[in-house]
């Protein structure tokens, strides 16, 4: 079609919990739309209803229910080890045709912890300490769905807990409930947000004016190199010229200091700058960090699919307008 753009993507680093990639040859509006969808409209699972049978802990029912809602819940497709997109396996509750709930639209978790029953099984040195009820005690009725106890393997190795702490109990206290998790989007409640951070930065364009730089002394060049806190410049050993560091583009976040220092050095205020750093308008460095509910690359793909569905829906509606 006439005015389509053909954006490019290059992945810088990808781990289950964080992904960094460069999106180029497209507009800020597309980058912003992708960011907004990752934060607000990517569907995930989270506990939505809690039926308490017994709660004699120090936290009251609604407080506990709020905490349970915030636990990130991970869906794993039967054939994969990744935290995947739950949209393929579940329906939103309001679209499901079942009467109250069914395995297609919800997942049930059960928890039953009684301090007096668990205490005898604990190690001798722990018997007097409070018992921490963690997300490990939640038993799901769907094999592929489990709370995300840790963000990644490193956190699991370093932590002293066995999962996300829900409440600490003492003697005589008992907690028993059934929690129902449903699919939703973050626009409805922040518990359904799959990302901790989803941001993008503009790619910096660093130009070094060789002619102007040749009028500088070595001390002045050192001053320019030092004034930038990101350390994006260096002096070439052989030629003595100012040049950008190898990974300068990924380091540059704040470059206003360069302007001030150069203004002080210039003979006339209207001369050109020696080093200019401008923001590119069509190249973005994205950084997406997951909460553990989904793998970071799955979040980006899910957001793109949501955008596609939304555009298709709008296309249909606008077509209906034409017929009227």
């Amino acid at each position, binding site marked *: *079609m*006439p*005015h*389509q*753009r*053909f*954006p*490019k*993507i*290059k*992945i810088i680093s*990808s781990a289950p919990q964080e992904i960094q*990639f460069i999106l180029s040859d*497209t*507009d*800020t*509006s*597309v980058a*912003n*739309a992708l960011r*907004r*969808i990752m934060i*607000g*409209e990517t569907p995930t699972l989270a506990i939505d209803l809690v039926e308490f049978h017994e709660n004699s802990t120090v936290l009251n029912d609604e407080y506990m229910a709020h905490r349970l809602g915030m636990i990130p819940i991970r869906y794993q497709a039967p054939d994969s080890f990744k935290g995947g997109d739950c949209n393929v396996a579940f329906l939103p509750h*309001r679209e499901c045709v079942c009467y109250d709930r069914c395995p297609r639209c919800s997942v049930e978790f059960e928890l039953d912890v009684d301090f007096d029953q668990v205490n005898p099984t604990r190690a001798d040195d722990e018997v007097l300490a409070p018992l921490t009820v963690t997300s490990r005690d939640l038993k799901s009725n769907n094999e592929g769905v489990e709370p995300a106890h840790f963000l990644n393997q490193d956190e699991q190795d370093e932590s002293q807990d066995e999962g996300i702490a829900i409440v600490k109990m003492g003697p005589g206290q008992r907690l028993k409930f059934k929690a129902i998790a449903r699919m939703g*989007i973050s*626009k*409805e*409640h922040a518990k359904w947000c799959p990302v901790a951070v989803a941001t993008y930065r503009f790619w910096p364009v660093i130009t070094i004016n060789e002619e102007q730089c040749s009028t500088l002394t070595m001390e002045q060049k050192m001053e320019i190199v030092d004034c930038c806190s990101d350390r994006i410049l260096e002096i070439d050993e052989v030629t003595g010229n100012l040049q950008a560091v190898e990974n300068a583009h990924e380091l540059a976040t704040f470059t206003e200091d360069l302007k001030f220092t150069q203004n002080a050095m210039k003979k006339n205020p209207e001369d050109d700058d020696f080093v200019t750093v401008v923001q590119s308008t069509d190249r973005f460095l994205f950084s997406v960090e997951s909460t553990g509910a989904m793998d970071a*690359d799955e979040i*980006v*793909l899910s957001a*793109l*699919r949501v*955008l*596609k569905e*939304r*555009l*298709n*829906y*709008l*296309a249909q*509606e*606008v*077509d*209906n*307008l*034409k017929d009227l």
Partner: protein
Amino acid sequence: MNAPERASSFLLDEDIGEVKVTYSADTKVSNAGTFRFNKEDHTVANILRMQLLRDPMVRFAGYIHPHPLVHFFDFKIQTNSSTVAPQEVLSSAIEDLSNETDHLITAFTDALDDWKKENEKGVMGL
């Protein structure tokens, strides 16, 4: 008491018969019309606007989101000539964006595969 329903920012209100998009042609300006998109926000409005501005048949394209607590926006489009209706340019813009999103999905999956291949090579190289 005054709190709106949680889902009211993105679900159409069927009790009042809300439709996603409505259109009203502009009486005072030629070849112009205003669309109202219900239960949408800047996410969709901005990409539509930027895409329409790339179309040479569009003379004016702008949107307004009147207040953060109301969940609709008004989108005004004016075309250059009476042969091209605002609905047509809007459809064409949405189609371009949809194709761009498809392209992005394939570009992303390809980039992921490339990255995995490169990193497996690195591990083998060690």
